[in-house]
């Protein structure tokens, strides 16, 4: 069970805490069931600490993050699925706490900008290259024999 487990001695909140920093995840929070605990850690990584600057609750030292971590574990122990837990937290703290915005509504713009841009750009590049090749193909043999003779005359002058 070697999942990536993130813990951070938080950068942003450290100055507020004075000389005794807290560890992000406390040993007493850890669930006895390693499968549930691993799910809890994964969920904690996609939830944003509501009072910090861009930290997830797994890294954060703020007390609200600890509350949220405990809340996640409580819901998991109660038998919630991962998405149930996220819904539960989002209902209470707003979508601000989701680090991965829901792919629905206006957020679809966010999610589909990349793929749409790729398709458009590849299509555009394809048409561009083809049209340039056509231009070359039609431009090259444009001179007839008569024109070539005329060109030679002009160049001689």
């Amino acid at each position, binding site marked *: *069970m*070697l999942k*990536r*487990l*993130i*813990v*951070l*001695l938080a*950068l*942003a909140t*450290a*100055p507020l805490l*004075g*000389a*005794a*920093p807290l*560890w992000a*995840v406390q*040993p007493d929070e850890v669930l006895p069931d390693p499968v549930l605990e691993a799910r809890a850690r994964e969920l904690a*990584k*996609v939830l*944003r600490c509501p009072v910090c*600057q*861009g*930290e*997830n609750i797994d*890294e954060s030292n703020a007390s609200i993050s600890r509350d949220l971590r405990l809340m996640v574990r409580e819901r998991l122990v109660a038998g919630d699925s991962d998405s149930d837990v996220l819904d539960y937290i989002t209902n209470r703290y*707003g*979508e*601000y*706490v*989701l*680090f*991965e*915005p829901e792919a629905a509504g*206006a*957020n679809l*713009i*966010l*999610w589909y*900008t*990349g793929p749409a*841009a*790729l398709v458009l*750009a*590849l299509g555009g*590049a*394809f048409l561009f*290259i*083809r049209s*340039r*090749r056509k*231009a*070359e193909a039609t431009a090259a043999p444009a001179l007839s024999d008569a024109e070539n003779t005329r060109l030679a005359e002009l160049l001689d002058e």
Partner: protein
Amino acid sequence: MIAELGHFALILAFGVALIQAIVPMIGAWQGWRGWMAVGEPAATAQFLLIAASFGALTYAFVTSDFSLQLVFANSHTDKPMLYKVAGVWGNHEGSMLLWVLILSGFGAAAAWFGGALPPSLRARVLAVQASIGAAFLGFILFTSNPFVRLVQPPFNGKDLNPLLQDPGLAFHPPFLYLGYVGLSMAFSFAVAALIEGRVDAAWARWVRPWTLAAWIFLTIGIGLGSWWAYYELGWGGFWFWDPVENASFMPWLLAAALLHSAIVVEKREALKSWTILLAILAFGFSLIGTFIVRSGVITSVHSFASDPERGVYILVLLAVFVGGALTLYAARAGAMQAKGVFGMVSRESALVVNNILLAVAALVVFVGTIWPLVAEMAWGRKLSVGAPFFEKAFTPFMLLLVIVLPIGALMPWKRAGLARAVQPLIPAMVLALSVAALTWAIGTNRSAIALVGAGLGSWLIFGALTELWVRSGRKAARITRLPRADWGKALAHGGLGVTFIGIALLTAWDSEDIRVAKIGEPFTVAGYEITLDGVEEVQGPNYTSTVGTMSVRENGKLTAVMHPEKRVYPVQAMPTTEAAIDQRFTGDVYLVIGDPQLGGGFAVRTYIKPFADWIWTGLALMALGGMLSLSDRRYRVAAGARKRAPLAATPAE
């Protein structure tokens, strides 16, 4: 007194920059040689004046002159000399001064080494460069003056943020700025070319080395920052998708795209207007980065001096420069007629695909970074976009890029056959698949990330080796005699593969252990037996430290003795962790010591970080590859050739 001289030099530099921005531009427009020639001495004078000003500020920091508000807020007499100097740019005002110093340095370099450029182009490049300089000098003088005095100088300063007191971070900002600002040269060349109305191979030959240099600096700067995060923050994270990190990543992606499209302009005289657009955008994203870091509009853990007034000023600069350049582009890009024609399957097309993937990846990062702002302004929604989004939305483009890279790199110019281009790569493909299979077999968990990352990373490495082999005509003796550009290309592409492997295996396989360790009681993490042998208190120059001694045993054999530290900097009352890292080829053992516990013992964190150092090794290889390419003969030969025959450039029409 020295500080006032520095302030005065800065004001003079502002005046010189204004002259340099206007006079050569008019000269080039009217064809007046004398006016055009003003650019060169002005660029030198501007650089020397800003250097004097920067020197004055550095002097104030070195001598701990606390009558300067900036020194008081960011320095302390007990601070080691390295960090007194690094403190000059460890804050908003000083870092802006470094920014304009580098900007004028690039301008001066263009003046000194640009003797072979057509005079009108050189005059315009210097004028555009100076207009950026003037704008930022004005920004410093009017909103962020570093030379403000305090009426009553205090006895001592507030010290630099202890997290920044680290050699990796001392040199991270200068490299990053060299990269950001280096892109201003590409921008100035692009705008000058638009005004001039001509882009040709010679132009691209000028733009490429500047872009390459900027990209090398950005690579080093980003690498140093990420390495610093890895060992200093105490948990071994190396990339956070934080807005400020994204701000440096977007110019890096676009600079990489520009680097490649400029090759097409240089060799084949195609993709001219696209290259110009990229040059404008790459510097535009540098400015956006500056805006993000310094305005505080987007919250970030890196919050620098966030100040709305400064934000508005930079936003106006951004609008003027990027908006102006894009307007000019819209008006003049039609004049950039391409010459080279190429087939659907060709090196040119492969580089177009490279550009599309890099540009779209940068777009994804950009949209993700500003989306919280957009959502709040448009719908009043407060939402967050973080690492999970970027990992999902950004990674696919990088995977595609890596898949096509070795094939495109081997393709001939103009017209190619797909089968013939792929054929020499079959051994590389087989090797990469075997690496993927091996990764799957030895992995302690069945991770798809490890499989794909290691497979694609080794595909890049073997692909780069194949290319060296093919270029040398399949003769081992000739490989060493290949031009440096070929070696540079292979190193940079192989380096990307090394980084790819590092990121994938670290992400897939790392493990962590958090516990209370009692002195003398061993514990085991992922096959390593670790013992906390002792803990002592040590007094540093401006901090006190709790130092642990920990031994690591593998199969009963002692393999490392490590000393993790926890420091407290009393002036800022801030603790920092100094992790002990035992670096190995296949991964790091990473130890962090925490506070003593009530029941005895110390909180200890152990991380096993497989292949972590491959990430930065790969970045170093990429930078090295860039340097090799930059030192290639053809730039030196080409420069010499143009000196003999200047003005050889022909209009593109």
